[in-house]
């Protein structure tokens, strides 16, 4: 009987067009919009690219500064210099073709349009030159006998820093948006969960009333129905994740089996949240759905679906929320798989997710057990 009810449950899922929209199409649309809007943001904003800068030579220009810029362009590939006239330089800056203008005259001046990482680096170049000149003249005045040694050491161009690499994993912060999207997709199972509970209660639906009078044990039907919803939700979310990974080329890591396991438990939580809300008292179905949307959206908001860095903010001020919020746990589990070398934190997240599922199951069972309907 279980498998027959399970089969019927799957068929009913396939016929719910609106659920299919929210579980398959909506995450795909949202994922595409994310990718289009900030898919390349990491490369554009945070990754280093040679800084284009205009260079204008004025009267009494300093030859050494020009040499420094050429060196930085050719050897360090830090800047890309365009030698132009003053007017042209301003035009280039206005059109955002360059990040700044170096005016080489009796003093070096930098002109920019904004404060940022690139312009800060340009300012550092300017300072490096001016301060070296300053220090040089100071030493020349006070210790002229050591000037040759100083000049010799500057020419050596020491590499003071030994560069270490912390990880070669994907450190793109924007991935959090896609992890949160997968979490949302899992938790959208709550809508089918509510349907499941409504179809179980005789006071809420005709199907529920019919099931009460059937000879089959109601809990076998409920269990089969829940399993069917979880299966459907699992496949919808896997489809969404595959779209992200293969169509949008989002880096979700290579731990496929562990990701699938996480999606399965995430889907179970989504459906069980719906069943739990659906089992509460005697409220209208629309209110139950509203409650589900509200709860899911708050969970996803706190996990970083709408604002980047939200997870870390919550972790700083109220870490306990991150331990009990299923969306945060899913985001953290995905993150752990991609960033850490060990599975300890992933396992902790999975345990947290399992615990929440068990609590929701017990809570729902306590609410629907021993429900009897009077003969009318």
């Amino acid at each position, binding site marked *: 009987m279980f498998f027959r009810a399970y089969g019927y449950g799957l068929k009913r899922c396939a016929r719910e067009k*609106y659920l299919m929209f929210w579980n398959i199409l*909506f995450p795909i*649309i949202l994922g595409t*919009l994310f990718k*289009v*809007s*900030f898919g*390349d*943001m990491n490369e*554009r*904003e*945070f*990754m*280093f690219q040679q800084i284009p800068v205009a260079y204008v030579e004025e009267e009494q220009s300093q030859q050494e500064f020009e040499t420094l810029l050429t060196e930085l362009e050719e050897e360090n590939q*830090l800047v890309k210099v365009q030698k132009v006239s003053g007017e042209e330089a*301003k035009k280039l*800056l*206005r059109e955002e073709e360059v990040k700044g203008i170096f005016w080489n005259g009796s*003093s070096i*001046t*930098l*002109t*920019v*349009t904004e*404060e*940022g*990482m690139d312009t*800060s*680096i340009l*300012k*550092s170049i*300017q*300072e490096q030159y*001016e301060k*070296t000149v*300053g*220090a*040089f003249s100071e*030493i020349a005045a*006070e*210790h002229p006998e*050591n*000037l040759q*040694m*100083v000049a010799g050491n*500057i020419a050596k161009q*020491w590499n*003071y*820093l*030994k*560069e*270490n690499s*912390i*990880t070669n994993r994907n450190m793109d*912060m924007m991935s959090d948006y896609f992890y949160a999207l997968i979490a949302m997709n899992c938790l959208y199972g709550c809508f089918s969960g509510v349907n499941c509970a409504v179809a179980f209660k005789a006071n809420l639906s005709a199907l529920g009333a019919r099931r009460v009078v059937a000879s089959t044990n109601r809990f076998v039907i409920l269990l089969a129905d829940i399993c069917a919803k979880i299966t459907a939700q699992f496949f919808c979310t896997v489809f969404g994740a595959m779209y992200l990974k293969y169509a949008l080329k989002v880096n979700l890591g290579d731990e496929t089996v562990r990701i699938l396991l996480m999606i399965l438990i995430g889907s179970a939580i989504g459906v069980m949240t719906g069943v739990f809300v659906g089992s509460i008292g005697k409220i209208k179905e629309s209110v139950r759905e509203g409650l589900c949307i509200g709860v899911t959206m708050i969970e996803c908001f706190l996990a970083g679906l709408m604002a980047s860095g939200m997870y*870390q903010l919550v972790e700083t001020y109220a870490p306990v929320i991150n331990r009990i919020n299923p969306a945060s746990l899913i985001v953290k589990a995905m993150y752990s798989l991609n*960033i*850490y070398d*060990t599975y300890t*934190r992933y396992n902790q997240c999975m345990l947290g997710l399992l615990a929440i599922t068990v609590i929701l199951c017990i809570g729902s069972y306590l609410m629907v057990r021993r429900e009897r309907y009077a003969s009318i």
Partner: protein
Amino acid sequence: MQVFKAFFKILNKNKTAMIVYMVIYLALTFVLSSNGQKNDTSDFSKVCMEIGVENQDNGKLGEALVAYLEKENEIKDIPKEREDLLDAMYYRDIQYVLIIPEDFTEKFLAGEREEVLEGTAVPGNNTAYLAKMEIDEFLQKLGMYIDGGYEPEQAAQKTLDNMEKESKVEFLSVEDSGTKPAAAYFFDYIPYIFLCIMMVSLSCVLIIFNEKNLDARNRCSSMSFFQRNLQMVLGSLGIMLLEYGVFMLVAWIMYPNYMGSFRGILSMGNALAFMLVCLSIAFLAGRQAKDDAQLNMAANVIGLAFSFLGGVFVPIDLMNKGMQKVAKFVPSYWYVSSNNSIWKIKSLSEAGDIYRNWLIMLAFAIAVFAIALMMNRLKARKS
């Protein structure tokens, strides 16, 4: 004016959703505008980095380096657990990790300067370059003073003094150094909220008039087709003006100075132009959707698509070039484009592009409205 009155009676029943949208929006705007106002000086200031430093140095030079870095950056302790360090670097709580070994001063004074410090950065990140440049800059000057014959303490002090001198940085024009006024943040997310709120109000009302039996009953009433349609148009405009009025009133209460200036008037005009686009979209959706569920889907998809593609949520210049071209086919792009220039212009005579953007939005509104009427006509023929 029965139809007109009925419009507002239905609206009154749906007011909860509208109020929820408004309250959430106003709360978010308030947070965002107070967040965005951190920097209000016209002087250039360098990016402040969060640098994790572990100073094990037994001598004085390590201390001097930390004192220098501290001036323009935030120095943080390095987390002990590797996982915590990875977290901090992933979320950019720490952008660069610097370890100063115990024999740093000793080696530096002895002239061994190659790879005397250890640095770790997020791979490829541009902060690594800035951090490296700042450290190099300091050590180079320190090396110069030491080689110049100064005592270590004196050399460290001289280097710190040398670093104090500010270089000359100018902004290309005055408005580049200006700060976005708090009121401008209020208008930033208007496209999203106007679209959603028009969908949950106007479309919900129209959908009720669409209901087959009710529509048939209305058609056979004594009121002329023209009269009924006229009242529906007036009702739609009424709802639009009511919602627009509420938002503008809140803006006047929160930012009276800005709203009283010519910039405030331009922002209001810009919002009105976009509101007309929302009116036409809500009209189209309200006439086409079969039930609330369909409307809900349309509101979410259109609201989010317009906001993401038009540059409401993410600045347009962060998108790739191809997408920036596609964005021009989305009305919110023109709203955002005006909104970004309104707070920068100095007089109404510079607002030529803004007026052009209004006309483009108006053209969008007329086009969508025409599509809605055409679909209505096709539907009427079918039935």
